[in-house]
């Protein structure tokens, strides 16, 4: 199914959770903050949220800045 991750259309396995998505993308959940349809999802709850067709997901972290 089609979802938008960080502004890009991506294909994700139907019924996958946010936790599974991070695993698939090889991202360490401790180093990433997840926003799902504009709502922040706590690290502990990542495996409780199932992704649906058309969802918007933002994966952010800290980069160099002033």
């Amino acid at each position, binding site marked *: 199914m089609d979802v938008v991750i960080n502004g890009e259309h991506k294909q994700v396995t139907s019924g996958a959770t946010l936790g599974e998505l991070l695993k698939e993308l090889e991202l360490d959940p401790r180093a990433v903050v997840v926003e799902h349809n504009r709502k922040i999802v706590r690290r502990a709850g990542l495996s409780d949220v199932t992704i649906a067709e058309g969802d918007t997901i933002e994966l952010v972290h*800290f*980069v*160099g800045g002033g």
Partner: protein
Amino acid sequence: MTTAVETIQDTPLVIGGRTFQSRLLVGTGKYPDMETMVRAIEASGAEVVTVAVRRVNLDRTKDSSVLHYLDPKHVFLLANTAGCYTAADAIRYARLAREAGFNDFVKLEVIGDEETLLPDVQGLLESAKVLVQEGFKVLAYTNEDLVTALRLEDAGCAAVMPLASPIGSGLGLLNPLSIRTIKRRLHVPVIVDAGVGTASDACVTMEQGVDGILMNTAIAAAQDPVAMAHAMRLATIAGRAAYLAGRMPRREVAMPSSPTKGMLD
């Protein structure tokens, strides 16, 4: 014997209940490489380092997370809302930053103009109020306007951060009087943020009596960032020490330093 240094009675910098020994705060952007950044931060002696919140690079060709190079046990990570042009965006970025789980401090920036990167004080006040309500320790990046600084303090900000000159300009302290006025009138720490170009700028800024100074480009864009970080460390200490020492009054006429009596006929 008492040395000159021992006569300086200074208190540590306390922001939002956290105590810091260094009055120099530094950014982590624009370095030629991450190794130079790490060495420059070390040379600066800064304890507080700012970071930005950005999307993870999904193609994984390069790992851009600053946390691969900085140990949050050794530095205090101050997330910023740089790049945000509305109160809503700044609030969104601040919430994301807090979720990273390090602390509830945020360097709040709401930019109002692309060319000058000057702050949108209306959006700043609006977002500051919301974030303070949500328990954030807000360090608000603002212009050198006293009334805005007072409003930010009233809104519950943990520190107010007026600019020396526009972000990344390196023009130094353009309005010392306004900075002194803000420092005199506020009770929360005043940290001058942005515009410093070289060590003398940092020194002059600290001589105004402000509690600290935050800089990024002046160090990162120097020809030798590590050496400049060292210079900034010394300049910050020197400026603070000079402020505490209390400068001599200015005079518009000369006064001899040597005795006028005892001259030969």
